[in-house]
């Protein structure tokens, strides 16, 4: 759907975006991740035809953004950083104004607006000035604005910034809902957001692409050793040795007493192996009682920190 090839944008000597290449497939929600000032917003401004790149190309479908700017702008819905809105207009006038500029025929306008108002949940604030709305509602108005014309592609620059946890969940669910039919590019520096909403993640750092894959792929590629946490009721003397004898286990750590006669262990095994089944069989054989067993996941947060460390 969107192909970004060797894209660079320089502001004077600053390389805001430095030779990045990636692709967004139709119908996927792409998380565009990076620390502040990594070049996310700049890339989005180029995709949405706000400004041209210094070099490289962005193609939407098979059209280049600067040769077919008007056509591409018709296909795109864009919510810029900080969600700028006219604070002196009320919600319905504003959305109507956007629908006009989007060229939605007058006959369809009312129906289209009704749908979008319902989808984004702004029905209760239609006649309030946007300047008086809470941040959560403004964000919804911004999303509604981006989607008035039912675009194939949505570009959202930090759509949940500044919202409270409940609003964040609401907006995320809304985006997920939309992502079922549309291609969405979502920039953020909030990691749980990516795990919660995105099919694929692109991480950029200092203008360079540092990772591209599904959240799971990124996590597993960064996982050194597999780690399983165990809480057992068992005679403490045999346990470490018996665990260490299992196939693929590289290290057993006794984490001490949990409560009473329960002890906690951390078992490391080689990368790509899953020892939980053999752990279970061992426990059955030795008549140990397992109170707890879970495999530790390398969080996306660790991946992100690892990739975007500043030298």
């Amino acid at each position, binding site marked *: 759907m969107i192909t970004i090839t060797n894209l660079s944008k320089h502001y004077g000597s600053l390389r805001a975006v430095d030779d990045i290449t990636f692709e967004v497939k139709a119908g996927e929600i792409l998380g565009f991740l990076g620390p502040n000032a990594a070049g996310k917003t700049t890339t989005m401004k180029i995709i949405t035809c706000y400004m041209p790149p210094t070099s490289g190309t962005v193609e939407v479908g098979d059209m280049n953004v600067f040769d077919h700017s008007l056509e591409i702008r018709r296909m795109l819905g864009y919510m810029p950083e900080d969600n700028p809105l006219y604070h002196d207009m009320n919600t319905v006038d504003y959305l109507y104004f956007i629908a*006009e500029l989007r060229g939605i025929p007058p006959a369809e306008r009312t129906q289209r607006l009704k749908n979008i108002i319902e989808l984004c949940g702004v029905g209760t604030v239609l006649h309030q000035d946007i300047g008086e709305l809470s941040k959560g509602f403004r964000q919804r108005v911004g999303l509604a*604005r981006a989607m008035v014309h039912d675009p194939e592609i949505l570009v959202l620059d930090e759509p949940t910034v500044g919202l409270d946890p409940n609003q964040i969940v609401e907006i995320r669910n809304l985006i997920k809902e939309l992502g079922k039919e549309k291609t969405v590019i979502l920039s953020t520096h909030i990691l749980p957001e990516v795990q919660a909403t995105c099919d694929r993640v692109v991480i950029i750092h200092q203008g360079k692409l540092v990772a591209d894959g599904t959240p799971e792929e990124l996590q597993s590629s960064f996982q050194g050793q597999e780690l399983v946490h165990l809480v057992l009721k068992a005679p403490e003397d045999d346990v470490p040795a018996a665990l260490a004898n299992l196939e693929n286990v590289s290290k057993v750590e006794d984490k001490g007493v949990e409560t009473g006669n329960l002890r906690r262990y951390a078992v490391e095994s080689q990368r790509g192996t899953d020892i939980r089944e053999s752990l279970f069989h061992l426990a059955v054989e030795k008549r140990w009682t397992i109170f707890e067993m879970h495999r530790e996941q390398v969080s996306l947060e660790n991946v992100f920190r690892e990739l975007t460390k500043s030298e």
Partner: protein
Amino acid sequence: MNNIYSIFKKEVRSYFNSPIAYIFITLFLLLSGYFFGSTLFLQNQADLRSVFGFWVPFFLTLFVPAMTMRLIAEEKRSGTLEVLVTMPIRDSEVILGKYLAAFVLLLTAILLTFTYPLTISILGNADGGSIVGGYLGLILMGASYLAIGVYISSMTENQIVAFIISLAIIFALFMLDKILMLVPSGLVSILEYVSINNHFANIARGVIDSRDLIYYLSLIFLGLFLATRTLASRKSA
């Protein structure tokens, strides 16, 4: 065309939904009415020459920058311009829609002074030609000021800067013919041509000459063209 109309409507509404339009019109009428009334009552002259010839053009130099300062600068500051120009509309449509909205506000204010020529025609012999010419001249002059104001507003994010710079430029154009005696004689004819008042004086006498029309129309075109260029300057890599 539809896009220009949508933007025009939105801007007109934002002038008239806020106090801006009313403050502007009221002050404009109060000030021009005072000077019209003072010639009428104090000097016993049923005459539009001083009010249309000097005072109204002078007030326009102050009012027009105040009308245009916000048009683009405010959208740049708040970021809404980015929303506007990433929609499938042309930069020139944005500029034209906004310009026309400001023009309608100006036109409203100028036309509301119709009571002055009305009074004159009741009290004495009004010169129809010079009244029509005077209005045409004022409208053209105001329209040129507006184009300059829109251009300056497109260059900055700061309304105050936009106001001061447009005021300076417009005021300079207004003052040019008043400093002619101070400049070397070789420059006089050039400055006379550039001076906005000189062309205004011709039209206000009731003489509608294509040279004066071309002067104003090219000033308007130049301002709007430059404003469109400035808006598009984000595109120069």
